[in-house]
């Protein structure tokens, strides 16, 4: 079982949090902080497994994470999951994001967290791995995207116009926000299969 999936940046700002067990909002924030604390002090090039997240679960649980550019992807899993399998799953997740957002960067995750949730929902459901085949995931995500578009139809047009106008006028365009090396470079890892 996967207990939680967290994405946060190098400063510990949460970009996505998905808990498959119920915690109060305060505990959730505490878990994110604790996890960030544990993960961020580790060097690159050391192993991606961590024992001893105190708040989630207990001794049976492990943190498995990967660090891409400015983002940490952390999966908290119990012993029924294969460690290397989960690492591959993270890779699949990031590659899928990369495909869906076209060169994904932290900003995509910041502004479209709902979309990231939807993609994740096609991979992991209720803490269990649902699908690991990237093309299958993308097919389903795109099919749902299409449905959304067709529903928006004419009614969606003004909304799109509005957001275009907003972007035109407002100074805080994403382009101007400097958050360093934002583009997540997806390294080519030996594929799982």
């Amino acid at each position, binding site marked *: 079982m996967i207990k939680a999936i967290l994405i946060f940046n190098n400063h510990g700002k949460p970009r996505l949090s998905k808990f498959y067990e119920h915690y109060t909002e305060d505990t959730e924030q505490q878990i994110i902080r604790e996890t960030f604390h544990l993960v961020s002090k580790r060097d690159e090039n050391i192993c991606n497994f961590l024992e001893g997240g105190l708040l989630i679960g207990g001794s049976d649980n492990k943190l498995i994470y990967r660090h891409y550019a400015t983002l940490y992807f952390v999966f908290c899993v119990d012993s029924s999951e294969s460690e290397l399998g989960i690492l591959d799953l993270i890779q699949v997740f990031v590659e899928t994001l990369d495909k869906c957002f076209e060169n994904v960067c932290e900003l995509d995750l910041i502004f479209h967290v709902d979309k990231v949730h939807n993609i994740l*929902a096609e991979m992991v459901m*209720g803490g269990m791995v649902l699908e690991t085949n990237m093309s299958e995931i993308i097919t389903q995500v795109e099919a749902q995207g299409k*449905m959304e578009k067709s529903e928006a139809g004419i009614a969606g047009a*003004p909304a799109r116009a509005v957001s275009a106008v907003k972007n035109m006028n407002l100074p805080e365009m994403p382009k101007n*926000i400097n958050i360093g090396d934002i583009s997540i470079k997806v390294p080519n890892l030996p594929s799982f299969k």
Partner: protein
Amino acid sequence: MALKIVKGSIDRMFDKNLQDLVRGIRNHKDDEAKYISTCIDEIKQELKQDNIAVKANAVCKLTYLQMLGYDVSWAAFNIVEVMSSSKFTYKRIGYLAASQCFHEGTDVIMLTTNQIRKDLSSPNQYDTGVALTGLSCFVTPDLARDLANDIMTLMSHTKPYIRKKAVLIMYKVFLKYPESLRPAFPRLKEKLEDPDPGVQSAAVNVICELARRNPKNYLSLAPLFFKLMTSSTNNWVLIKIIKLFGALTPLEPRLGKKLIEPLTNLIHSTSAMSLLYECVNTVIAVLISLSSGMPNHSASIQLCVQKLRILIEDSDQNLKYLGLLAMSKILKTHPKSVQSHKDLILQCLDDKDESIRLRALDLLYGMVSKKNLMEIVKKLMLHVDKAEGTTYRDELLTKIIDICSQSNFQYITNFEWYISILVELTRLEGTRHGHLIASQMLDVAIRVKAIRGFAVAQMATLLDNAHLLTGNTQRNGICEVLYAAAWICGEFSEHLEDPMQTLEAMLRPKVATLPGHIQAVYVQNAAKLFATVLRKHDGETESQAAQETSQLLIDRLPLFVQSANLEVQERASCILQLVKYIQKLQQKNVEVAEEVTALFAGELNPVAPKAQKKVPIPEGLDLDAWINEPPSESESEDEKPKAVFAKEEPKHSRSRHTEVDEKELARRREVRKQEQANNPFYIKASPSSQKVYDAPGVEHIPVVQIDLSVPLKVPGMPMSDQYLKLEVERRQKEKAERKKKEKKKKREKRGKERKADSGPESEEDITPAHQVDIVTEEMPENALPSDDDDKDPNDPHKALDIDLDNLLSGFSSRPLADSEKLPVRTHRPEALKSPAEDRDSESVPQETKKKSGKEKKKDKEKDRKRSKEEKKKKKKHKEVEEELLESQPEEAVQSEETKEAAAPPTSTSAEASDLDFWLSSAPVPPAAQEVTAPSSAAAAVDTSSAAAPESEPDEPKDTEPEDTKSSKHKKKKQKKEKEEKEKKKKKRHHHHHQHHSDAGGEDSVQNGTVEEEEPLPPMSNYSLLAENSYIKMMKEDADQVYDIQGNHQDESKVVVSVIFENKSDSFLKSMEFNVLDSLNSKLQRPEGAGAHDSLTVPFQLPPGVSNEARFVFSVQSIIMPQKLKGTLTFIVKSDESSTHEKLDFKLHFTCTSYLITTPCYSDAYAKLLESGDLKGSSLRLEGINMPFHHLLARICFHHHFSVVERIDSCASMYSRSIQGHHVCLLVKTSDQTVSIDAKCDEPSLLGNVLDEIKQTFSKC
């Protein structure tokens, strides 16, 4: 300007969307909280509007705020509103928000039930999908109960996308609503063989999660998983299955044997590291479970260790970490294989990654032996010096102590060395583990009598140099050591060289800065030292020294009397008064030494940590009952005075028995000696160490001379190294001596061989440096052995410990009790007929009638037993109820037999034997086992009865409901099972000849209707192929038949497994298998090989060994049975000669072997028959004298059919050929005549199948 106006008006319409919110928050970094609170106010306004789009937008923003830690539960109702929107876009937003913030305590959740049900049955698959995803996050017991049936229906949805989600969510449903497990399980099992890999993977996932918690209930699925493992190519699925097998093997060792080979193959063949790693892990688990029984797996262990070494040497830190992790598992059972890689592991201690260093440390723990302990600890001490950062250093420190103290100091040969290591460890700055070192010092000093002299000397030096330890404020943790030092010096002061000096050191003013509890020990032990000094000067008239000592105490103690710590103050003033009194006596020249010493006389023994728990409660004592009326004080404490001893440290627990007479002591020694003899953990250092007890005192223990010029004058100087050198020398010397002795012995040629175990390098050879007597820990008399820790009662998986075995027959006739049906909404017509329900409704009336009959009987039984004790009756009552529940399915078909007193065997016996059957068909066939190793065969029978899920023998008081059957019932079942097995064994021999074509895997039996009535006659799927004096070939072609892509035009492939068994005493090698191909059937040969080339069998056979090989045949037409002639050639190699031998055989492909057991629902079956595509044929069998269910079971087993429906003495059956032909049977029986009406779309295939069926029954 104009643009701005337009923008403003549109803004009012659409307000902020999520992106605007995010942007806003980023722009208000300084006053984020304030900005968000205004946003929340806006959202509240938006939620009040009627426009669903606005609401959805608001909810979307709330989801984001929830991630930032804001409580949004106040909007729960609005979320439900958005969820129920008809538009997918909004619905998805609603479900996402719900999945993020709904939980069991959310009260609006109960409003969602109908909405979710509507979405689940929506024609749009994404509506259903989104609902399932959301539900998986917030499912509650109520939702699970109400929706279980709907979700179960979805498991058979036409879209794989929905099926896989429905399958996966069932796990969550089971967790919340355990009652749904039994009814849903057959279908879940069915999904393991779903054509869609995603669905299959989901089903594997769910069953693995279930089985991980309650593995024994899933043992009977092992054959199915085994098949999946050998056929699946999906690494995710493989990993899950292999992990599952890892959990199952401890329960069934024979499973392990069967697994080893395919797993080793996977290890060799896979390129995926994750799969390789899990395989290695499971092989380890298998080997652990086998470790007692099978000695011949050193090759597998070697393979695992080798592969792990490769992982550890890899540059990828992840692999290194996992390699070490797996290595530590091997270590527990096969320490020797790991120890050879000590170099590698020590190397990992230098790794820059702390996780890896910690793993390596764990490994070291198991690698030490008497031989290498000192060496390893020396390395660790070096690391302690180098280590930066206190956490890792503290970890090292605890590990050193763990390693040394493990299993009662088993590996320590020289305690002087250990004490000096401990002293060296006190140099660590800022360690938190002072108390750990202290307790080790105490432990060693108390339990190893021989070392006390040395320990006391060291401790005295420590006390003398206490300022070094306490001087630095950073070292606060370490001053705990002084606690131990002071106590040891006081308690064993007779060993002190100069007690006076130590006494002086303990009373220095600086001591007052130490923590209170340490001061208290100082004071108390100063008194002990005082007693020692007095005794030393006893007899000297007018002893100046004694009086000086008294004066010293009187001078220094007032400092402690002023202490703020109560304990210190009290002890100090008490002792001060005592000393003053003694001084007065001394001045009168009265002999006081004796009396003062008596204050502290007596021996102290360590008490086992669990001693308190194990004090048996005396008969009739109820600790919870009031002894007097509530207000008065409870006196129960008086009844267990030992309580005082156990909970506290030895220091506090000292009770001085000043008046223990010699007799009492002798008796105690005797008792203790016996205890030690029975205690496996007690180290008998050498036979002579026992004598220590007979000697009156400690003085007689031969203590090695300590060269005191070497050990510390200044504490903190490394000196433990010297022991290492000394030790090596000593061992060499001993070895030489021993050799001499042995030579002598040989010369004497005495018949008595006293040194039986003089292996060249055995551990036993290393004798401790001096006679070590480790005092065992004391236990109360009649200590209770109970030590089991119960599972967490809150574990949700406990409820899922449900026996599923009588369910496993696919969709068998009806294993579910009435009460177990899932709640169905009756006012709504069912969209899809589920097979389980179908069957439910059919047999319900029949069953209830019989149930009432049984109930009456049970009532009578109860009456009889009323005289029994109340407690028992209560339990019995429960059992009866359980039994009633369990046996309902049996009754449905069996009315007469229930009247007999004998409890009917449940299906589980059939199931269990089924599993047994599969397991025993492991590479070593049962017949062979009997020939070669009758004892092991017997053992296998034993274990099988023990391991069969339901028939665990004499499991004491199992509280799980499904196991609480009356023991009578159990015993009978067991007996029956045994009989059955014996029968089976006998029969197997015959069967080889009888059923030439018999086939049918375990599935087909499960598929039969057979279950409960009577134990089935055993059936075998082996047939003897050919045999000569050298080798026996047996064919098993049951479940290995499969087609490729179901392409009707192309040829199909059939896999035939052949077991080769070496019957001779010689080695068989270079086996080659060849078949004369026919036009229709061809042996598949590797590319490039000619049509007549033979295939090499990929193994050799040592004498008495058997192994299994598989051969693939391609078959074009399956409508006719085939016979292929073949030859096996091999070389028989004995010691002196090798000959070339040959064995001819005929491979018989029957038509039924092309049939695959395929379940079919009755509605689909009816459609198939109505379609009119099928051609009919019929068959009459006369004189069949067997129960109908046996008949069906036979057809199922031998001919791969499954029962679609059975009504009384009439049943419809179905099977499908590998090329997709449907074969339907209608079997009717009356008297001894059986008529079979059959339909199939290929008449000649049908004719052949019917012929074969006829043949099967003509044989019995």
